C-alpha cells in the first residue's frame, strides 16, 4: 500500500497553490504568508527603497498569481514561477517608467562590465564575514546593495529573499550556472566590502 502523503503534501508551495486553484482560500493565505516578505523586499531593494511603488508591484504580482490559480501547473518550483513573474513585472515597470536605459536587468553590457570587474577583484578578500549584526549593519548592507549593478543585485535577491538555488536562478534568468555564480560572487564581495570597517 503506498504511503499516504496527503498530510504532508499541503506543506509544499506547489501543493498549496494547487489547493488554492481548487478553491481553498486558506491555502492561499498560507502561501502568501510564506512569500509576501520576500517578494515585497525583492521589489523594494530593486527600487532603492521606494515603498509605494514596491507595494504597487507587489500587489500586481499577487493579483497575477490569483488570476493564474487555475492555470498553474507545478512543472517548476513555485518560487521559481513566482519570482519569474516578479522579475517580469519589475522589468515592465522600468520599461514604462524609465525607458530602455534603465531596464538594466536585461542589459548585457552592464552585466558583462560588472562580471569583468568581479573577476579582476577575485581572491582579494574572500574570507568569512563575522560582522556585528545590528541596525548599522543592515543599513550599510541595504545601501551597498543599491550600489551593486542590477543583474548582480537581482541574483543576490533571488537567492536571499526568494531562497532560490543557483540552478533555479540560472533557469529563471535564462543564463548559465557559471554566470549566476559570477554575479553572486560580485554581489557578496561588494557587500562584504561595505562592512569591512565594522569588523
Amino acid at each position: 500500500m503506498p504511503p499516504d502523503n496527503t498530510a504532508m503534501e499541503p506543506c509544499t508551495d506547489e501543493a498549496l497553490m494547487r489547493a488554492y486553484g481548487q478553491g481553498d482560500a486558506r491555502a492561499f493565505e498560507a502561501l502568501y504568508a510564506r512569500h509576501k516578505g520576500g517578494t515585497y523586499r525583492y521589489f523594494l531593494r530593486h527600487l532603492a527603497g521606494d515603498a509605494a511603488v514596491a507595494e504597487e508591484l507587489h500587489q500586481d504580482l499577487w493579483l497575477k498569481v490569483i488570476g493564474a490559480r487555475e492555470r498553474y501547473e507545478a512543472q517548476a518550483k513555485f518560487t521559481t514561477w513566482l519570482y519569474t513573474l516578479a522579475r517580469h513585472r519589475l522589468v515592465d515597470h522600468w520599461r514604462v517608467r524609465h525607458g530602455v536605459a534603465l531596464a538594466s536587468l536585461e542589459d548585457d553590457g552592464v552585466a558583462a562590465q560588472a562580471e569583468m570587474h568581479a573577476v579582476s577583484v577575485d581572491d582579494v578578500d574572500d574570507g568569512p564575514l563575522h560582522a556585528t549584526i545590528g541596525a548599522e549593519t543592515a543599513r550599510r548592507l541595504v545601501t551597498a546593495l543599491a550600489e551593486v549593478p542590477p543583474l548582480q543585485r537581482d541574483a543576490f535577491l533571488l537567492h536571499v529573499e526568494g531562497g532560490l538555488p543557483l540552478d533555479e536562478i540560472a533557469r529563471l534568468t535564462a543564463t548559465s550556472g557559471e554566470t549566476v555564480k559570477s554575479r553572486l560572487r560580485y554581489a557578496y564581495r561588494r557587500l562584504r566590502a561595505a562592512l569591512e570597517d565594522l569588523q
Partner: protein
Amino acid sequence: MSNRDREDLREAGQDAALERAWRNGSAEQPSARVDAAILAAAHEAVADRKRVPSATPARVPPRQRWSRWAPMAAAAAVAGLAFMLVQTLPRDPERATTPAAQESAKAAAPASAKAPASARPDLAERQRVESSRVGESGRPVAQEQAAPPRVMAAPSDVPAPPAAMPAENPAGGIAAASQVPSVGSNESHSDAGAKRGAVADSIVTGAAASAEDWVAKVLALHDAGDIAAAADTLRAFRAAVPDADRHLPESLREWAESLP
C-alpha cells in the same frame, strides 16, 4: 539543500554570516492595507468560482436574459420566414392557373395524341425553341406565355399542337423541358415521351401534385436520358416540396446531390 547546491554556493563566494546579517536587518513587510487587499481578492476569486454554478441563473437580470435569447429568437424568425417563402412562392402560380390549366390540359392531351408533332414541323420547331427558352429562363417566362397557346389550342378545327402542353403546365419549365425529346423525330423516345406526358398531366391536373408524381416524373425523365429536363423537374420539385430529395429513390439521390 543538496551537496551540489552547497558546492555551487561555495564557488559563488557565499557568506553565511553576511546572509544572516542581511536577513536580520532586512525584514520589511508590505503594509496591512496591501495584505488585506490581496487576501480579499484571493477570497473573492474563490467565492466567485463557487458561486457560478448555483447562483448565476437566479442573478441574471431580465435584460441580460433577453439578450441571451435574442440570437436564437432571431434565427428562429429567419428560419420561419424562409420556410414561409419556400412554401408560398412556388405554389402561388399553381393556384392561380390551376382551373384554366386543368381544362386546357384535358383538351390538349387528346389533341396531342391525335396530331403527332412530326405532322406539324413548323409547330414542332416553335415548340422546341420555346421550350428551350423556358428551360433556360425559368418558370415566369413560361407563365407569361401560358395564355396564347391555350387560346390557340381550343378551336377544334386547328390541330392541337403539342406546344399546348408546356405552355399550360403550371410548372412551366418542367413541362416544357419534358416535351423536348418527344417533339423530335427520334422514335425510340416516343414511349418515354408519352409516359412523361402522362406524368406531367397528372401533375398539371392535380390541384396539388403529390411528391410521388414529382418523383415519377423526375424518374421517367432521368430514365429516358433527358438529364437536363430531369434536372429542371427536380429543381421545380425542390421548390414545391421543401424536403424533395428525401422522396427520391436511391438510384436518383447521388445524381440529385450533384445538382445545385
